């Protein structure tokens, strides 16, 4: 029984890997151009800011929350960094990173405070703060930050040519964030607490873990990650349109997280799964553009894959339950 169980649970990730490989091979056959380092880099370039936001969304879902405001936090943080560059072009990039991440943390903390203090479902709170955060940018001016303002050195982070090993630094930043988060979630008490409150909040409370404290932490961390994603976003896109930046990104992130095997019921989820989920979406996006399928299909295909993978995930879970009952 034990071996079967192992097979089935790892099947979840194997399934995503298999889908990535199959789509990749099929597209390579249809369009040999796909089989090139450029397209690989393109796939990778698609996913840095999505991955970073997805990591935040993942820990939220693991702790039984959903965050709709991560895209807005991305926009806020990116915009703040942009303003910084605009007022002082000599400002070091590192400082901008710190400002963006700090702002993200604060906005996340506000979410967490409202959710825990007033015990309102996180979906509602973040639906509200999503509008508030984006709105605040516009109340503060809200003009697009142009390409000319963004320092070259920041944009270089997303250029393969500028990297010594050929993989853009922004991709490495995202992967580094993923690795750090994975280590934190596995090897640190504070990381485990996120799973514990997600798995059984009442039991966690009886063991002396404050659900509120952990949730506040999760919201703050997710906010901080979105702040980081804001910087990566500017470096990749090259400008900052506060209205459009990160709009709807939450949904894509939720999709990536769910495809990666994180359970919407909380307590279950892996960083590797989320990385694979993002990668799958990246492959699909690039496959669509390179095979000449109209870009308009992209969203529909995304949606179908989300729905199908959620259903498959559920089927596997049911199978698992049955195999355990026997």
């Amino acid at each position, binding site marked *: 029984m034990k071996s079967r169980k192992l097979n089935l649970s790892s099947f979840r990730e194997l399934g995503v890997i298999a889908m990535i490989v199959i789509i990749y091979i099929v597209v390579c056959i249809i369009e040999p151009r796909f089989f090139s380092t450029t397209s690989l880099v393109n796939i990778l370039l698609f996913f840095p800011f999505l991955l970073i936001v997805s990591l935040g969304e993942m820990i939220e879902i693991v702790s039984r929350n*959903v965050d709709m405001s991560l895209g807005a936090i991305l926009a806020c943080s990116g915009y703040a960094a942009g303003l910084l560059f605009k007022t002082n072009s000599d400002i070091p990039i590192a400082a901008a990173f710190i400002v963006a991440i700090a702002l993200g943390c604060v906005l996340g903390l506000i979410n967490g405070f*409202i959710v825990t203090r*007033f*015990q*309102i*479902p996180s*979906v*509602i*709170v973040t*639906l*509200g*703060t*999503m*509008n*508030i*955060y*984006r*709105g*605040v*940018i*516009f*109340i503060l001016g*809200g003009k697009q930050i142009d390409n000319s303002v963004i320092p070259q050195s920041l944009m270089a982070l997303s250029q393969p040519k500028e990297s010594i090993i050929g993989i853009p630094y922004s991709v490495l930043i995202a992967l580094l964030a993923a690795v750090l988060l994975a280590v934190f979630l596995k090897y640190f008490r504070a990381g485990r607490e996120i799973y514990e409150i997600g798995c059984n909040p009442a039991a966690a409370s009886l063991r002396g873990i404050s659900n509120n404290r952990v949730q506040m932490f999760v919201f703050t961390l997710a906010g901080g990650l979105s702040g980081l994603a804001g910087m990566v976003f500017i470096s990749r896109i090259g400008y900052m349109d*506060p*209205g459009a930046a990160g709009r*709807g990104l939450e*949904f894509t992130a*939720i*999709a990536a997280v*769910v495809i990666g095997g994180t359970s*919407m019921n909380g307590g279950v989820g892996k960083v590797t799964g989320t990385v694979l989920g993002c990668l799958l979406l990246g492959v699909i996006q690039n496959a669509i553009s390179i095979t000449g399928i*109209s870009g*308009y*299909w*992209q*969203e*529909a*295909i*995304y*949606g*179908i894959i*989300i*729905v199908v993978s*959620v*259903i498959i995930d*559920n089927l596997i879970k049911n199978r698992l339950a049955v195999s355990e009952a026997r």
Partner: protein
Amino acid sequence: MKHKLKINRIIRPELTVFVFMILSLVVGILLSPNFLDIRFLLGSTIFYCELGLMAIPFTLLLTSGEIDLSIAANMSLVACLVAVLYQAGMSMPVLIVIGIAVGTLLGFFNGLLVTVTKLPSLVITIGIMSVYQGFSQVLVGDAAISGFPEWFIGLDQYTILGLIPLNLIILIVVALIFSFLLKKTVWGRKVTAIGLNRGTALYSGVAVEKTKVLLFTIQGTFCAIAGIMTMSRLQMAKYTIAGDGQMDVITMVLLGGTAFAGGRGSVLGTLAAFFIIVFIRTGMRLALLSNYSQMAILGLLLIVVIIISNGLEKMAKKYE
């Protein structure tokens, strides 16, 4: 005891929203003398009537403990389909019927998917939203299709007594019917019961799954109607025609005092929230605030109203 009972009756979740409605009207009047012009005020409702129309069945859906994030996508898909088929030479009256049928079918499909897979509708309909949105893009691309027949466009221009827009009348009538259904009828009680406790409802012989599928289906019908009304008002159709409409609808319904977890819903609350949104948006437009600033204030309002009504509920409990 009588005294306590009264307090309980006054302190209700919907109370906050009515207070805010009056408050927003007062603020609006203070901001702009235009607010005293009833014709202007009623006229400004037409921009939101379609969303309001979707929010009415949405109130029931949420009361039963389900949510449908794909409503705006359904709305644009219907609009785009009708537009494309019209371009292909079909006649508009037939297309209206087809459009409503398609929207209904899409809603029915959502309901089926949710009840068969037994997955949280929040998750399923996020995916469905992308699918529908994607199909509208596939249908029309970036184009805005226009050139509809004369009789079809400008539904919003019709008024009763030259004062009340037809769309608003439709909205209010639908709201009254659904309010009656939810609060006074057996069916409405069953809908509430499903949201309160699915298990007990099932054990009491309520056809839980069928009721849910029906609610999703009705939602689909109203999405289609809203889609066609929007086409008529804007005189064109494109894939962004509904925007992020689901967000406005959810805001409206939650603002109106319906519980996110189900089991408590108020259609009249939703209607009041509709007016709040109209007043605030109109007021802010007059004050030349951008769309995004308006969204920010609505977002803030959503959170504040829920905090206050939660607080009131606790207070009501204490009085018991």
